[in-house]
């Protein structure tokens, strides 16, 4: 067996862990990642799990990147192959020169070797059976043991691991000890049997201070808490479920009166998504800030009501944590495939503002912004996150809060306003910005009107009159123009070269940025824009106008963002070149790099 080629790679490699779900591996893998993070080294973790509860293959990919790259790179430097069923595939996924670790308690097939991969066997089951009692502990500790082995191989700081275990099992110190024992077992086995550390290894840095590892759903929930949301309605659906879970536990901590046990919030688990959005609209009509988290199928089910919200002009916030479509699709895989569904949701002429967070930090910030926009614009607002952002742990700077900020409730008439008013016309464009004034129920009799999804005129009365109808829907278009000024502006990164650019959205950002760095190293300098919202602000139009060719990177099959761009700007579609990734795994920088290089070549040839 020739020596696999391998260069020393400090703080710059990918570990992939192949497990069976339901065996406790997620905790172990998270421990591994957190340890590296605590050592001050930038890291990111991506979980590829099946749509079931127990017994199927599951993978966890940890990218250690001293340069702070957060996307998948296409490499696997270390594979921990704990699942016999996927062993063949896992082995073949290792990059040349990489390392594979497996449980050598049982022999593996002779065919399954690769000359360019270092294969390290550790008898994990055997070790654990010898040291732990009970099936539960034995299964769980196997995972912790491989973390111990990796600690030796990668030169992780055992003190850091110990501290993490202490925090995790704060209420059960015995469990902390048992876990630490398993760490040592793995650690010692590795030190005894292999040359430690590997050429790939971790070295302490100071790049994660004032950072956290957080998933987008938790961050969005935190945003909802801070935005003053009081009503949440939802129906469980992967991958949005943890958003409401997080909101519930935040509320339990911060919105429950310690003495009376009274809640300053109300979360309703609805019977389905149609009900969930109905509840949100009901609460929004009443004057509460209300939201629902969901995913693709939920959006489809909510469409009728979302069109109602648009036409009756009721604030609402919908978090769509996108997963792979169409239909049930792959519920535990990621895509950006609801862009068109959200933008034009519901029958008839409808358009809805969308915010596109790119990471958990923006989930937090945009959650807050979404409620202001919803009340400001009196309309349903989408926040389009995805499984990758929502459920994976991202390294983010500590979230910030400005205590001077106050919520923007938009144009709501107070009791005094109504008392003084001569009359109240619900849908009248008093200010020319397309946004009418609203009144809340229970405040004043003069504010009373009948909210409806059927034809109504500017005064708020029922109508089937052609002109009165047109007056209202034309104003809705004006309101949409106003929205373009209120939503967050795109992020622009200019480089030297002015004629060709890249445009992307949401969770593509990290991969695009890495690709741009790599392109830069090859002397190809491109401008970059990431859109943060729909309707597109004038800056998007300017950017498109400014370039001869724009690569549009997105994670769906049909180029939905590109479609929205050509629908809603005046750009010539010929210059928008799609780069699409839609297999359910988060987009990697490698595929973008390749596509852009290929595209540039083709452009040059043409």
């Amino acid at each position, binding site marked *: 067996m020739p020596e696999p080629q391998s260069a020393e790679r400090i703080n710059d490699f990918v570990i992939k862990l192949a497990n069976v779900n339901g065996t406790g591996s997620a905790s172990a893998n998270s421990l591994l990642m957190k340890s590296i993070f605590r050592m001050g080294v930038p890291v990111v973790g991506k979980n590829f799990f099946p749509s079931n509860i127990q017994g199927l293959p599951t993978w966890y990919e940890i990218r250690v990147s001293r340069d702070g790259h957060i996307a998948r790179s296409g490499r696997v430097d270390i594979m921990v192959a704990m699942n016999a069923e996927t062993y063949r595939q896992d082995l073949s996924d290792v990059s040349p020169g990489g390392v594979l670790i497996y449980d050598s308690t049982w022999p593996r097939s002779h065919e399954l070797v690769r000359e360019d991969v270092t294969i390290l066997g550790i008898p994990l089951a055997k070790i654990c059976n010898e040291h732990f009692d009970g099936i539960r502990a034995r299964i769980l500790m196997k995972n912790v043991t491989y973390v111990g082995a990796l600690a030796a191989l990668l030169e992780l700081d055992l003190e850091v691991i110990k501290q993490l275990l202490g925090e995790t099992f704060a209420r059960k110190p015995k469990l902390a000890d048992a876990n630490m024992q398993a760490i040592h077992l793995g650690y010692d086995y590795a030190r005894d049997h292999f040359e430690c550390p590997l050429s790939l290894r971790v070295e302490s840095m100071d790049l994660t201070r004032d950072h956290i590892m957080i998933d987008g759903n938790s961050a969005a929930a935190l945003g909802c808490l801070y935005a*003053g949301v009081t009503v949440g309605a939802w129906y469980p659906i992967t991958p949005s479920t943890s958003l409401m879970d997080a909101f519930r536990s935040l509320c339990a901590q911060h919105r429950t009166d310690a003495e009376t046990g*009274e809640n*300053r919030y109300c979360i309703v688990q609805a019977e389905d998504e149609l009900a969930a959005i*109905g509840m949100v609209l009901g609460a929004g009509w*009443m004057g509460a800030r209300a939201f629902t988290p969901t995913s693709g199928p939920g959006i489809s089910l909510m469409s009728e009501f979302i069109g109602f919200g648009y036409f009756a002009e009721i604030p609402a916030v919908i978090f769509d944590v996108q997963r792979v479509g169409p239909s049930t699709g792959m519920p535990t895989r990621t895509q950006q495939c609801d862009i068109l569904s959200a933008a034009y949701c519901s029958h008839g002429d409808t358009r809805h503002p969308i915010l596109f967070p790119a990471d958990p930090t923006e989930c937090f910030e945009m959650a807050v912004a979404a409620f202001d926009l919803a009340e400001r614009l009196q309309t349903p607002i989408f926040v389009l996150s995805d499984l990758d952002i929502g459920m994976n742990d991202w390294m983010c700077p500590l979230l910030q809060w400005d205590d001077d900020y106050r919520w923007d409730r938009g144009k709501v008439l107070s009791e005094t306003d109504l008392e003084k008013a001569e009359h109240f016309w619900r849908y009248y464009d008093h200010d020319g910005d397309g946004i009418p004034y609203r009144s809340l129920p229970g405040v004043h009799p003069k504010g009373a009107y*009948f909210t409806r999804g059927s034809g109504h*005129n500017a005064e708020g009365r029922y109508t089937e009159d052609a002109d009165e109808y047109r007056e209202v829907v034309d104003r809705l278009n004006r309101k949409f123009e106003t929205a373009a000024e209120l939503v967050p502006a795109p992020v622009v990164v200019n480089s030297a070269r002015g004629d060709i650019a890249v445009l992307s959205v949401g969770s593509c950002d990290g991969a695009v940025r890495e690709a741009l760095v790599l392109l830069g190293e090859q002397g190809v300098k491109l401008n970059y824009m990431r859109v943060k919202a729909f309707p597109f602000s004038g800056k998007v139009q300017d950017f498109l106008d400014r370039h001869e060719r724009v690569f549009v990177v997105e994670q769906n099959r049909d180029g939905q963002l590109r479609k929205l761009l050509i629908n809603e700007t005046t750009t010539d579609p010929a210059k928008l070149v799609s780069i699409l990734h839609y297999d359910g795994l988060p987009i990697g920088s490698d595929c973008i790099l390749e596509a852009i290089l290929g595209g540039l070549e083709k452009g040059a040839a043409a």
Partner: protein
Amino acid sequence: MSYMSKPRIAHPGLKKNALGLTRRDYEGGMSTLCAGCGHDSITAAIIQACFELAIEPHRVAKVSGIGCSSKTPAYFLSASHGFNSVHGRMPAVATGANAANRDLSYIGVSGDGDSLSIGLGQFCHAMRRNLDMLYLIENNGVYGLTKGQFSASADVGSKAKRGEINEQPPIDPVLTALAMGGTFVARSFSGDKEQLVPLIKAGLKHKGFALIDVLSPCVTFNDHEDSTKSYAYTRQHYHPALETDFVRPAEEIMADYDAGAAMSIELHDGSMIVLRKAAQDYDPQNRGTAFAYIKDKLRDSEFLTGLLYVEETAPDMHVLSHTADRPLVDFGWEDLCPGSSALPEILKRYR
């Protein structure tokens, strides 16, 4: 076409309630339903009940779905906010509204199509949550607004204007409510103001979900083919859309009968229904036996009317959720936003 409103003239001699308001103050816009429609009688009963209870009109929220029945909130309490939602989904809107503001009185108006077909799931779940609201089903056995198809409450043997006969057994809202844990379950008839007004008042005061299934004849679509009175019958080679082109002017049907007694009522098409008013000694506190008894009567083709089941102590949605007594909409920014000082502790778990 534009919204019509009745002239609101203040008669000095009009009776006033405890708030000093007259019945007029509880009225709404002019009805656009067919003359004689049972739904209009129910509207009148709601007005009467709210007037008598001296509810502040603007502290009521009116919610409805889609249908002739669901239009009626426009015809009462014009000083209340109303929400005419989408078809069958009013319960969800009411749930969210109530979650946000538990201090208003909620009056939901729905139809049998709205509540028992497209909206059956939401209707049941609102009862399960014991949402604090009055919920009226204006039950006519048909989809009035879409011109007379059978609804899920159509009786076996009833005939549609187009001549079809319904053979499917009905879904009964009262039996449904008993199965779903409804805490206030009543039935009445649109023309029986004597019974209906007190039921509405009781339902408004009930802390929880109060269902009143109000049988409410549709004057227009009970017209059937082989009735000699039928206009449709006489047309043969004709455009189906025109069959409903003429609506016979009709008067509302009234009913007045005593507790324990039965009364048969002739509907506009000549068919009959029999109402039986629950007797004085009827026990509305046992869900199981109530179900058995009502079902028995239905088997004899009698609709038992009155307050058929009530359970005053069941916790409503807010009690179950431990929501603050103060309406959520009344909390201010400071009550809700934890501020920057709380952040470090929250973010600790993410290190």
